[in-house]
């Protein structure tokens, strides 16, 4: 650990596992930049999700970080290595799980794993042991000696993740890891990725599934038209969305109507954007109950206490409280004015 050369002097621990600085890619004959000056850093052990619609530039970004796409401008670093100027060293530090299977069809999946390890200089005995371990973990032991021709998308995905782990990369890139998988296969992949996060593997995944990003990522970058529109934790992104968190109150006014001064008082509370009285045509017995929806910026739960106090001061009974949280999809719509798909 401490005998790692050079990097240890300035503290390897502080070095981002992946860093992108003002990265630009323009393909020949294209009038626009596929990736247009993006920057982000991923700390070791972090899960970074690049979220955006198809064609946003996610795959190109991963391509540049993994030495397969030459940057037009800017820098892409993996483990402190500039991938464009030292691709050979960078390749030993990274691993890629592509969207579509690129498994070697001429050899069994076990040999897919062991040959991959050999390409990366892992000694044979170690490779054999590690392959067994990973085949077991990924539920592939039974089919270890089968060629990958007839594998389903989900199985191939598992083999490719196992293969990528054979040389213990510093950063693992997954391009749309669950696109096209059935729900069970998707959950399986998610579980494996969570295990990797627990083991401290740095993961960079692209996805157009906001749920996936919210579930897996510590940090999310939202991309559209080659630009990074937002970069934060999923919670912060959703919290930062003006007025899309909601707090719904069911109150029981004495004379059957919510007094206007109360609505105004609620609107005065810090963090409340606006208040809406919801009219529903519920039958008579519930006529006494009224619902108010507060559109909130920031954490809706923090407003429960102040609203309860306000209601109590005015002698109104509070029957129920319901929190509505925004999704990353709302964040994307807010940023681009469009839905994700």
């Amino acid at each position, binding site marked *: 650990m401490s005998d790692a050369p050079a990097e240890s002097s300035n503290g390897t621990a502080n070095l981002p596992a992946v860093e992108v600085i003002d990265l630009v890619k323009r393909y020949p004959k294209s009038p626009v930049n596929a990736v247009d000056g993006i920057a982000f850093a991923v700390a070791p052990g972090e899960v970074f999700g690049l979220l955006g619609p198809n064609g946003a530039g996610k795959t190109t970004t991963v391509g540049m970080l993994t*030495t397969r796409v030459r940057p037009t401008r800017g820098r892409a670093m993996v483990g402190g290595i500039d991938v464009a100027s030292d691709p*050979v060293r960078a390749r030993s530090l990274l691993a890629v799980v*592509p969207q579509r299977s690129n498994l070697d069809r001429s050899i069994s999946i076990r040999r897919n794993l062991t040959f991959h390890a*050999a390409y990366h200089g892992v000694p044979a005995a170690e490779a054999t042991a590690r392959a067994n371990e990973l085949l077991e973990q990924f539920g592939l032991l039974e089919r270890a000696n089968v060629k990958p021709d007839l594998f389903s998308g989900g199985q191939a995905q598992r083999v490719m993740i196992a293969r990528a782990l054979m040389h213990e990369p510093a950063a693992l890139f997954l391009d749309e890891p669950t696109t096209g998988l059935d729900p069970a296969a998707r959950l399986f992949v998610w579980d494996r990725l969570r295990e990797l996060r627990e083991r401290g593997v740095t993961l960079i995944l692209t996805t157009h599934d906001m749920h996936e990003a919210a579930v897996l990522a510590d940090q999310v970058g939202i991309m559209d038209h080659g630009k990074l529109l937002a970069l934060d934790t999923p919670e912060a992104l959703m919290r930062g969305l003006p007025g899309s968190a909601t707090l719904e109150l069911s109150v029981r006014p004495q004379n059957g109507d919510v007094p206007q001064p109360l609505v105004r008082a609620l609107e005065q509370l810090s963090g409340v954007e606006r208040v809406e009285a919801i009219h529903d045509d519920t039958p008579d017995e519930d006529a006494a109950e009224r619902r108010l929806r507060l559109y909130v910026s920031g954490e809706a739960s923090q407003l429960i206490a102040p609203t309860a106090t306000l209601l109590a001061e005015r002698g109104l009974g509070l029957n129920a409280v319901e929190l509505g949280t925004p999704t990353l999809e709302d964040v994307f719509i807010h940023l681009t004015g469009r839905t994700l798909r």
Partner: protein
Amino acid sequence: MTAAVVAAPRIRQRQAFAAVLRRDLFVTWKELPVFLAQVILQPLFLLFVFGKVLASLGYTQNGYSDLLFPGLLALTAVITGMQTLAFPLVVEFGWTKEIEDRLLAPMSTALVAGEKVLFATMRAITATSIMIPVGILVLGSIPWRWSGVPLLIVALVLGSLLGAGLGLVMGTLVVPQRINIVFSLVFTPLLFTGCSQYPWPSLSKLPWFQVVTACNPMTYVSESMRAALVPSVPHIAVWVCMVVLVGSVSALMGIGVRGFYRRAID
């Protein structure tokens, strides 16, 4: 947490190169009967029909099989080298993407291409060497001069490299949708204009065809093989063959490696 022991880049590249070559040899070994059938059937039938059947029926002159045999060695070397690279490369780049795992191995992209060329050359040399005992079996005897063996080896290596170079260029320039048409447009003319079935100087009776065959670099492989094994048959001067072959191989490798880079890195 990461693979902390990082070998010096050169050692690592050598390890990766060796491992990728080992993978190719392993697959060939596993599919040995297929490999043998693929490379031997065509020259075997040519040898049998032109060298044995036609001779037995009296349609060819005495001694024709002596000048056919070196030509078929040339043909086997060039065609095997080409077949080993061209079709698999088109498929791996365009369809199965199998090559990606090797492109992401810690070695330079040029070395990945270099491994392909080395492997194709090895296969071509192997296939051509097998043709020698096959020739003895089919023809009863083959033209052989021990003093010609050094030139034979040089011609064999250059012919195999020539085939590999052709394969590399075709494999990286052709898109998968065009592979069938390109192969039939290239393969058959290459097969029949490479002077494997006739010595080049004898074409003086058919000058236009002599010009056409002079444009096929395989001609110079066939001619040097004849110079090595049957020097009494008129042939193109050995130094001319060597100059043309070294030049063609260099040009094809240059174009092929550039094409390889274009396919490997956007």
